[in-house]
């Protein structure tokens, strides 16, 4: 147990390195430039160089800050995002902790991350940080509702909160195909709301460097700042992995009913490749958002949630429930 845990943590760090590199390359691709290309082959060691730089930087604590909370906040943020990784199924029969309330566990733990952000913003004793913290509080609390509702739609269809059972229920087809339009709607809502939940552009109002000069982590430097960065990438991975698991069948291969030969070929592709392929597709989509969209304003952000996403997902839940009762899905 302990060994697998340590392995998982090491894997997460490596994963974050890779995501950092991927983000730079995706950004460069979108912005018609090359991206990192000096350190290591094709710039792949750039992120290592950055980490080394951040490690050796002085972790300043401002004079007026509440030192205890200021230093605690990055740990809370990192720990919460690492806790969420536990129940994810990476491949067939490869799941660290198949908790029977997987979906609920994920949404409950991820709701804790906001406390770290609020703590960081408040304890920096910087007005920009405080505004950033307030924004993130309002933002995350409201978008959690939409995430929860869109997850519930699949829980209704599969009849279980357990991630492994949800994956099993997709053996004959992923929910996004089986569930017709209502599931596609909740998938889209999930992607939008989770982009907001993990504070990435166009919902990165909490950091909004052009408005708040960095928002809640304005005062952080060195390793403490790196921890916020680390948690951002872990969150990105977790959100994409959950979306892949719930809507796209996790490690389940792509099958078409009736085409046995095709299905057999699909089965030969290892299940972990299926899982990571889907996850990275969603990660790419979220990165794509970041490098093409301008940022929303805070009132627009809240309007989007309360006036559009939440009513739509509530009606959608009714549709999904009706569909589940009548058995209209495949």
């Amino acid at each position, binding site marked *: 147990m302990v060994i697998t845990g340590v392995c998982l943590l090491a894997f997460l760090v490596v994963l974050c390195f890779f995501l950092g590199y991927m983000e730079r390359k995706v950004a460069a691709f979108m*912005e018609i430039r090359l991206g990192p290309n000096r350190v290591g082959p094709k710039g792949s060691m750039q992120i290592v160089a950055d980490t080394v730089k951040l490690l050796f930087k002085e972790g300043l604590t401002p004079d007026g800050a509440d030192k205890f909370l200021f230093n605690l906040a990055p740990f809370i943020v990192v720990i919460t995002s690492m806790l969420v990784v536990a129940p994810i199924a990476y491949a067939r029969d490869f799941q660290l902790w198949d908790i029977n309330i997987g979906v609920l566990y994920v949404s409950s733990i991820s709701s804790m991350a906001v406390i770290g952000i609020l703590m960081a913003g408040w304890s920096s004793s910087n007005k920009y940080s405080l505004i950033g913290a307030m924004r993130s509080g309002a933002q995350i609390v409201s978008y959690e509702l939409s995430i929860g509702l869109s997850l519930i739609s699949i829980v209704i269809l599969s009849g279980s909160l357990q991630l492994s059972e949800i994956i099993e229920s997709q053996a004959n087809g992923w929910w996004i195909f089986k569930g017709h339009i209502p599931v596609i709607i909740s998938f889209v809502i999930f992607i939008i709301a989770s982009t907001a939940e993990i504070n990435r552009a166009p919902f990165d109002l909490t950091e909004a460097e052009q408005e708040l000069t960095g928002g809640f982590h304005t005062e952080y430097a060195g390793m403490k700042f790196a921890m916020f960065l680390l948690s951002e990438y872990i969150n990105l991975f977790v959100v994409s992995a959950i979306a892949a698991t719930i809507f796209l069948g996790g490690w389940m291969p792509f099958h078409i009913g009736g085409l046995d030969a095709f299905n057999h070929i699909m089965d030969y592709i290892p299940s972990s490749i299926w899982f990571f392929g889907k996850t990275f597709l969603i990660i790419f989509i979220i990165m794509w958002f970041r490098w093409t969209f*301008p940022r929303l*304003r805070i009132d627009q952000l809240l309007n989007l949630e309360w006036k559009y996403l939440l009513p739509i997902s509530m009606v959608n839940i009714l549709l999904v429930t009706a569909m589940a009762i009548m058995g209209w899905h495949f």
Partner: protein
Amino acid sequence: MLLGQDHITEEGEFVINMGPQHPATHGVLHLKIGLDGETIKKIEPHLGYIHRSIEKMCEQLSYRQFIFTTSRMDYLSAHINNQACVLAVEKALQVEATPRAKAIRVLMAELTRLASHQLWWACMGLDLGAVTPFFYAFREREAINTIIEETCGTRLTQNYMVPGGVMMDIHPNFQKRVKEVLKQIKEKAHEYDELLTGNVIFQQRLKGVGYLSKEDAVSYGCSGPTARASGVSCDVRKLFPYDGYEQLKFDEILNTEGDSWARYLVRLGEMKQSISIIEQLIDNIPEGDFQAKTKNVIKLPKGDFYQRVETARGELGVYIVSDGGATPYRCKFRSPNFSNLSAIPKMAEGAKIGDLVAIMATVDLVIPDIDR
């Protein structure tokens, strides 16, 4: 400044200092903002972080030298600033530039305007959180700067204009290169629309934000695209033509909405007009001298002379008071950004912090022009 009398001291108000080091102010501008939640109640600009007292310096410099200090004011329309000074001196001396020089000046001025608006567009996206447009706009801006560099020798502070004409003739490649760039800009225009103009979030961020009425625009002395977006006709190129603008066909882009979206559209329209002006001129540069004969030491007659030009940001006025000597007795630059800045507190009343960033982006301030 911070010690002095403070207007934002109301009890219970949340005061933040935007700048002097802030990404959205594009330089060392310091705005003291009184907030109620995220809603802006008051803004007080504090200036002087890069004040170089150019007006005082000009009093020590000859009429050939003082022109070049103005490149450092609005460094994004350096050519046009130089042009204003040169025209003021020419007006006082009653010398006229040669036709070839005039055409070159207009070409350079419009290229500068185009490049300046490209930079504005780039930073506009950046300020609203979209990083990618920056690189697209810079692709074209760099090409323009390269053309300017080929002829003038520098990319930013060109110092190309002299009284009576321009400093040297254009590079042989100039016409060819300019046509190439224009073609490129036209081909890539749809990318601009796809990236920002057509984006719903972007439109929502600008529409109805930072409204400036026509009366206020006039009263605050706004000029350039900022005022034209409020329906004030103020294009100096149309109203008080200089250097042969009267012979060129172009429209003054007007919009009556007065919000940030209107300012955005006006600037986009101006880019198209600049392209059309360049196209009209590029094949019709008259042959002849590029410089009219002037004396080595220029002495202006006694009196005061005022010359205005249209820079990328509005009306730049050069006011020279001469006592008959070889240096200006008093030199005043009426800078467009200074007046436009004074309208920002009015525009941002009741807006959010994010709106203030959008407003500053659409007004397109260049701080060295304010802190002359």
